[in-house]
């Protein structure tokens, strides 16, 4: 277990470094800069601005400054030519730098404000995706080919096929305008989470439903299930103890990356429902050439994907006693 953890941590560090490096240089190679706008800046003003954000430095120095842990600016270590007031900085010290676009905030502050909101929305979406997707999948598998199965599968296929903004539009029309039950957009109460949560989770619920159904059917055909039934075990015990755990393995391995996507927020859903989460930053920061914010959300996403996949691996050992972490 310890060796597994150590190896995972090392790989994580290496992956993160690679992601930071590649995206740093990719981002800088894109045309246009954070300060370009319809109104060109006077060259002197532009120079002042670039100096403020160290964009006048050579790229390698900007990279080292961004990565840390040494602070290279005028307040950095004296042997680097600074004043020595502030020796450390950069990603390695946990500082993601000031945002270029939202100048009153650091990237850390932006993520600290928006991530919990995305997490809350994501949790709601995930919860309903797992509960609804899982239970309809099980229901479907009980009588494959039956009327219920057909109906649920139709829904699941529609859920996968329909983009979530279409689902969102339909939900807004129904619950916002026709029934006037729920707010159409905004952020400030639990009711604001319901529609976006359903819309965000719908495709996932549909997918989980299909995965569960397939997994269940496969597991039900296993020898040990027949043995259990032959033993005279009540059907609900056969299902819960001998089938479900095996059937959920593919669902769990799907949930890892899906959760990373769902928890970091969705650009489309967050825009439609005006939810101030992280989702919009993924796209907008790149469009704004907000170098630091874009790097920050990339780092966040990498960390989440890695962390959740790690959790999935741990869950495997709980679900299937044959799997050992050392072999992973």
């Amino acid at each position, binding site marked *: 277990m310890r060796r597994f953890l150590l190896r995972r941590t090392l790989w994580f560090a290496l992956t993160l470094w690679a992601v930071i490096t590649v995206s740093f240089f990719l981002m800088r190679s*894109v*045309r*246009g*800069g954070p*300060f*370009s*706008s*319809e*109104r*060109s*800046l*006077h*060259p*002197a*003003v532009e120079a*002042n*601005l670039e*100096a*403020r954000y160290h964009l006048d430095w050579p790229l390698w120095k900007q990279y080292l400054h961004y990565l840390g842990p040494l602070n290279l600016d005028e*307040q950095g270590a004296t042997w680097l030519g600074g004043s020595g*007031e*502030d020796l450390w900085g950069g990603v390695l010290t946990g500082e993601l730098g000031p945002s270029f*676009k*939202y*100048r*009153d905030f*650091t990237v850390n*502050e932006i993520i600290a*404000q*928006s991530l*919990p909101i995305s*997490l*809350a929305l994501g*949790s*709601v979406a995930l*919860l309903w995706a797992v509960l609804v997707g899982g239970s309809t999948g099980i229901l479907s598998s009980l009588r494959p080919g039956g009327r219920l199965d057909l109906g649920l599968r139709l829904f699941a296929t529609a859920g996968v096929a329909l983009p979530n903004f279409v689902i969102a*539009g339909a939900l*807004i029309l129904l619950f916002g*305008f026709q029934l*006037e039950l729920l*707010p*159409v*957009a*905004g*952020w*400030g*109460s*639990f009711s*604001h*989470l319901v529609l976006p949560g359903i819309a965000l989770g719908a495709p996932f619920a549909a997918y989980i439903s299909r995965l569960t159904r397939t997994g269940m059917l496969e597991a039900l055909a296993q020898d040990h299930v027949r043995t259990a039934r032959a033993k005279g075990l009540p059907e609900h015990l056969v299902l819960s103890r001998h089938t479900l755990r095996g059937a959920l393995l593919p669902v769990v391995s799907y949930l890892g990356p899906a959760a990373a996507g769902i928890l970091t927020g969705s650009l489309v859903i967050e*825009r*439609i*429902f*005006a939810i*101030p*989460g992280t989702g919009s930053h993924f796209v907008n920061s790149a*469009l*704004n*050439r907000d170098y630091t914010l874009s790097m920050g959300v990339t780092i966040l996403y990498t960390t989440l994907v890695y962390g959740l996949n790690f959790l999935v691996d741990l869950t495997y050992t*709980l679900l299937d006693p044959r799997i050992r972490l050392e072999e992973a």
Partner: protein
Amino acid sequence: MPVVVAMRGVRSRRSSAALLLLGALALGAWSLVGKARLVRADFVMANGGEVTSLDPARVTGVPEGRVLYALFEGLVVKHPQTLEPLPGMARSWEISEDGRRYTFHLRPEARWSNGDPLFASDVEWSWRRLLHPDTAAEYAYQLWGVVAARAFSHHPRDRGLFLEQGLWVEARADTLRLGLQPPSPELLDGGPPLVLRCTPGESFERGDVLIQVGERELSAPFSGRCRAHNLPPPTGEGPVDPYAADWLLEWEASSDELEQARAQGRLLEGSELEQALWDRVGIRALDEHTLVVDLVHPTPYFLQLTGYYPLFPVHRRSLEEARRRNPKTWRRQWLAPENLVTNGPFALYERRINDRLRLRKNPYYWDADRVAMDTIDILAADNYGTLLNLYLTGEVDWIDRAPPNLVPRLLEREDFRPTPYLGVYFYRVNVTRPPLDDRRVRTALALSIDREAICEKIVKKGEQPNWGLVPHGMPGYRRAEMKHAPRKGGSPRVAFEADCERARALLAEAGFGPGGKELGEIELLYNTSEAHRDIAEVVADGWRRHLGVDARLVNQEWKVYLDTQVQLDYDVSRSSWIADYADPNNFLSVFVGSGENNRTGWSDPAYDEWIERAAREADPARRAELLRAAEEILVRELPILPIYTYVSTNLVKPRLGGFHENVQDDHLPKFLYWMDDEELERSRQARAAGSQVSPGGPDSGLYPPAAARGAER
């Protein structure tokens, strides 16, 4: 058997762990939501995006402006309908006869939102901050019309050496850069010409004459090799425009020589240098409530400018305190809701990134008695559909945009009344590329754009076709238009056919078309957006059908498109320009030869001269004529292809009083209030009769009737 028992235990622990996790998630979501709960504000507006900053000196956009107009106040305030300057922080002002000296008398009762009195020195300090290079303000140039302000914006960061009145040197470790202290009036207004006697790359000896200003000669303080930097033409002869050159020369000095200068007291460092330079700038607080501003030229829009957000005063003490407490983060710290001190009708209460700003009435505001709203929410939502949904369900009272595909249906509503405002949609032409370097080709292209079709079939909000650069509705200005068949009276289709006929003749005259040279394909660049694509398609189609000219549409992502435009790597490119203040100069000065926003490669000394002469003209009517003369050149030469004037796209609750459609689409929250039923009925009737609410007393339309009555009492 015991194994099974153990397994059971493990399993129950597992499932309870899973339950716990889910519970924690739900609880977390719940508590987060609980914290986010806010009572609806008196007035909710959508701002179309998260603001870049709340620092007046560091923003340039429309959404930022809306927030700042609520939080801060300048020396003057715009009238909500006519935009005429009304007294704001300044109670009154005088303008000298030559239009170059402004004396502002600040309100003795003016206060900051923490109760501190606001003095003229606060304004001086804030403007100094706006101009200071460390602030790196994009809009620093708004104050460059003030004497010596521009030089202050460019002043050296570390050390400087004064040579003589108006001339100084930036001193770095081994390099000296000679700068000029512009604009000193005698250099500009018919004063002696400035002559440089230095050729780049040339060595010179200490004592050599380097610069000649009229009779005065300036000798090199040190010997060395002259390195050109922003030098005028290589001979180095002839008058130099101090506006065009921030740095004139560079040369090297030994540390001995620098020591010597220090001993003579001519070498100034850091704050000493800054102060010495600031002392020359024409902004001075005479006493607690009097501010005097000296301008280089009479600038008729300067009064308007003092009500424009970059010039809003900021609270010096809280900035300096933040700086002292957090040397690293003070630039953000002072803007946090718990720290921000403002002087406008509202103060910041809460700020959530990408969600909303909650403002509360500022009790210390001088006119607080007549501010009707107690709380205002400014939402950051920007999606067309979302905004409309929020508006239609009553969550938001004012949205500034409407989904383009719904415009025809929205036009039937009483709360959607698009009105022209000071912005233009046009195409830039790269005049450095043949065949577009030929004026006749550009004119032909401009004539065969079907503006009526674009306005009526594509944008559809009542936009007006434009034949010049300056938009319709510019107060006090008669626009110049390119030559075209008259639309009035006859059918626009017939007129358009006549224009196309002339366009074909012009192309033939230039040697293109049937029997002549091949014109080649023209690339039409726009930033990725459906609206721009639709317009570009109409334009390209018109060129193909009426001129036989092929155009290829090219779309680029916004920032790439901007870069392409700046690099002059295009043929024809979509553009727009929106006024900062209501003055034609705002549009026309874009296309002077040295303008950084020109982006067409076009320059015309005659054009630049008209603009320059207009800048010096004190008489408004004559100035307007001079500007018009410049625009005449522009519409003859056509480095731009005019298309149409913008309209506002506000959806506003009919009950909202104090909201007037105006040419700058500026709506100050100070004046907003909710009408009672009676007034709503009256305003509906007035609108149905086709008139704006008729003006009565001096404050009519400015304040809610109830508050106005209250103030009288």
